[in-house]
């Protein structure tokens, strides 16, 4: 029924359009004018529209920046993230400035130089000096950005791994995450996908002495201001571990171990204070991986050393979990 209705509506809309266009064409034929000739009046209207709609668009952009500002991610909760935020501010500021110079210029030129039959354009085919100027200026600006960017990148990716860096494995599969703590020895036992069986969902090699004290969990607890190195593996397809609040992202690729090291510097409790009671750090999947891609998540909790010690003590280690509790 609805389909028929829609069909009728569509047909009548088309018929109306045909009529409107026909009528306008006939009218101008009577007046002995070509409907499709662009007149000075058209140029005035369209030029003005560029001014109005163009600047309307710019205002819309400003409006968005103001109204939706509170929806954006809060400042980074990690040490390297703070630097990324700074770089982001600088780059954003720069492109916003350029945007608000060039776009108005475009719209304004369209308006200002709208044509008139009696006018003539100014013949100008090139000007080497100008062209050099607007090649050199972007080059200089970009050079600065590149240098700043590469420094930040270097800083984020080449983390120093020391004795005190906590090792945690994050294991991805369709459609959930599992974490494995390295235990007292701070060493992750070997793992192999062929060993995945029953409770041993990560394929940990229990013959490796480093495995016995490892701990498995469905959430990740981190100690504030303690560096941590996340190691990523995937069981099936590519996933991507995305921790937007920490400015951390890394793909999880089957057959390859990837990693990302960072130092969280705000506890969940602190964030709840500033962002509201509901706040949680969360790990999302950010590489299309199937039907439940949109719901592949794990909670991250940043806490003080004491809280962490209590929590970790409450977790069984793998030796107990896999070998003794049958």
């Amino acid at each position, binding site marked *: 029924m609805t389909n028929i209705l*829609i069909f009728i509506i569509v047909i009548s809309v*088309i018929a109306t*359009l*045909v009529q409107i266009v026909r009528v306008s*064409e006939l009218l101008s034929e009577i007046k002995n004018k070509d*409907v499709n000739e662009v007149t000075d009046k*058209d140029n005035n209207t*369209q030029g003005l529209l*560029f001014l109005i*709609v163009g600047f309307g668009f710019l205002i819309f952009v400003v409006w968005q920046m103001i109204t*939706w500002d*509170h929806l*954006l*991610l809060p400042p980074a909760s990690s040490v390297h993230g703070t630097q990324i935020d700074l*770089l982001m501010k600088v*780059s954003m500021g*720069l*492109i916003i400035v350029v*945007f608000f110079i*060039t776009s108005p*210029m*475009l*719209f304004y*030129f369209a308006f200002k*130089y*709208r*044509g008139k039959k009696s006018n003539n*354009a*100014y013949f*100008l*085919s*090139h*000007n080497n000096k*100008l*062209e050099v100027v607007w*090649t050199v200026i*972007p080059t200089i600006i*970009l050079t600065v*950005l*590149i240098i700043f*960017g*590469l420094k*930040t*990148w*270097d800083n984020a*990716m080449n983390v120093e791994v020391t004795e005190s860096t906590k090792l945690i494995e994050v294991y991805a599969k*369709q459609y959930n995450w599992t974490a494995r703590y390295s235990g007292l020895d701070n060493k992750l036992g070997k793992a192999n996908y062929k060993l995945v069986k029953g409770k041993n969902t990560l394929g940990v090699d229990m013959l490796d002495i480093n495995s016995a004290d490892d701990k498995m969990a469905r959430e990740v607890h981190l100690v504030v201001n303690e560096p941590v190195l996340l190691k990523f593996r995937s*069981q*099936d*397809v590519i996933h991507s571990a995305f921790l*937007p609040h920490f*400015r951390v992202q890394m793909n999880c*690729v*089957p*057959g*390859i171990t*990837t990693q990302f090291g960072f130092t969280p510097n705000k506890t969940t409790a602190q964030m709840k204070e500033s962002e509201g009671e509901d706040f*949680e750090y969360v790990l*999302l999947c950010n590489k299309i*991986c199937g039907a439940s891609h949109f719901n592949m998540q794990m909670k991250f909790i940043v806490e003080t050393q004491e809280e962490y010690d209590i929590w970790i003590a409450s977790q069984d280690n793998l030796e107990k979990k896999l070998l003794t509790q049958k």
Partner: protein
Amino acid sequence: MSEHHKENFITKYIFSMDHKMIAKQFLLTGMFMAVVGMLMSAIFRVQLANPGETSILYNLLPSTWLNDAGGLNPDKYLALVTMHGTILVFWVLTAGLSGTFANFLIPLQIGARDMASGFLNMLSYWFFFIATVVLLSSLFVESGPASGGWTIYPPLSALPQAIPGSGTGMTLWLISITLFVVGSLLGGLNYIVTILNLRTIGMTMQRLPLTVWALLITAILGVLSFPVLLSCGLLLVFDRSFGTSFYLSDIIINGEVLHNEGGSPILFEHLFWFLGHPEVYIILLPALGIVSEVISVNSRKPIFGYKAMVGALLLIAFLSFIVWGHHMFMTGMNPFLGSVFTFTTLLIAIPSAVKVFNYLATLWRGNIRFTPAMLFAIGTVSAFITGGLTGIILGDSALDINVHDTYFVVGHFHIVMGLSAIYGMFAGVYHWFPKMYGRMMNKNLGYIHFWGTFICAYGVFFPMHFLGLAGLPRRYYSNSAFPMFDGLSDINSLITFFALAGAIVQAIFLFNFFYSIFKGTKASQNPWKSNTLEWTTPVERIHGNWPGELPVVKRWAYDYSKPGAEEDFILQTEPLKDGEIEH
């Protein structure tokens, strides 16, 4: 070759070897696919605004794609996104754009009777056509069409066990793309050879219109990058169907332990993006070529800095082969390699900036005539500015950490590639419609179409940057699984509103287009008072383009408002006056 032979209905309209007819075939097929792709986006936008709820639009879908409550299934959401991307990137903006305008404009603007090989040209279209049929047929297989994203990363796309779409649907996708690539390569070969050899007397490379330059460089990019997609796909086919392990290693899928060891999905990404990045310029450059022509004609001014424009095109084309890694910053690549790609990527912004400034300088002190084509050309420049700037954020590997694969990227590429190119395509259609069909498109409907599109398009894609900065990943069926995204539902509804409105506005264009083919007012020979050679041909389409001798070119294409001339344009065939210097 093809000058003398009788035409009947079949050779004239179906298996035509005439470049103008083939161009129209590409255009109509491209438009059809654009409608299909747009409807898909309307459907998934509705899902994003009202997750899980049913909608009248879903009547367009097979009922197996819906759940009992009438909502869209998550895996079919991904199928829609994937097909939408594939169709728009390859079918509409590659074949629809290059196929139409390369075929139509190259012979006409360089003064040739036809393409170098009409036969290859015809083959090129028919490969494309069969590819289209295969792609569309994949919508109707039981397990659904390919659903792993248009970038089809393995292992997701390699393993039918991973998602239903990776079964028959993916096989058809690969067959279709292979046919598509073959068609594109045949076309590209032909364009290059035609431009290099069949230019008429006097049409030196320095006098080529920028459209032809852009199409030439596009064709070269295609010929060098599409074969890489073939090898990339071939290895994927072997992995999928014959049990090799190029892209696969250490996988358990659906409880099944696979034997594959040693392969690397990252290898696929390298090969894919080695094509993929040049591909985005294959899409963009023809649009920029069209825009250069349209802006110059309608500003009644020479394009500013012709040489710099060509230089920028060449530089962009060259750089586009060494930046592909910027799509892979987060794959765990060596950080040093990431640095190199950041460097090369940001370099591209320089020639891009030069192009923008040259467009602005062309408008400056012009005598602008706002034809619908001109409106769209200015729209392209606007989109190119807006989207190019966000590229500077994405190209910075350190910043990409937090925006990679979020809606920020979606906003970026839809504006810089989607909008720039589709506006360029519209500009081309409005501008050359009189040459294609001998009639004019209705001006006022064109105005409405432009402003509707311009407003809705920014309404759709600009807010996406904010979604991305709020951390929202792309390709999510619904944002309701994460409380942190609850605040974003207003933005999503707004985007969907504009998306639907924008889709409706396109109906005006479709109407105008088909109405004008049959009923539009008759066009004169040179309605825009343009300099280029295509406007010296008769209004009626004839095989061989010019009735008598080929025109002889005496000057460049951009002598608009030249001091001392009687009119504000001088045809390229007009000899230089005594003492007149060429620009």
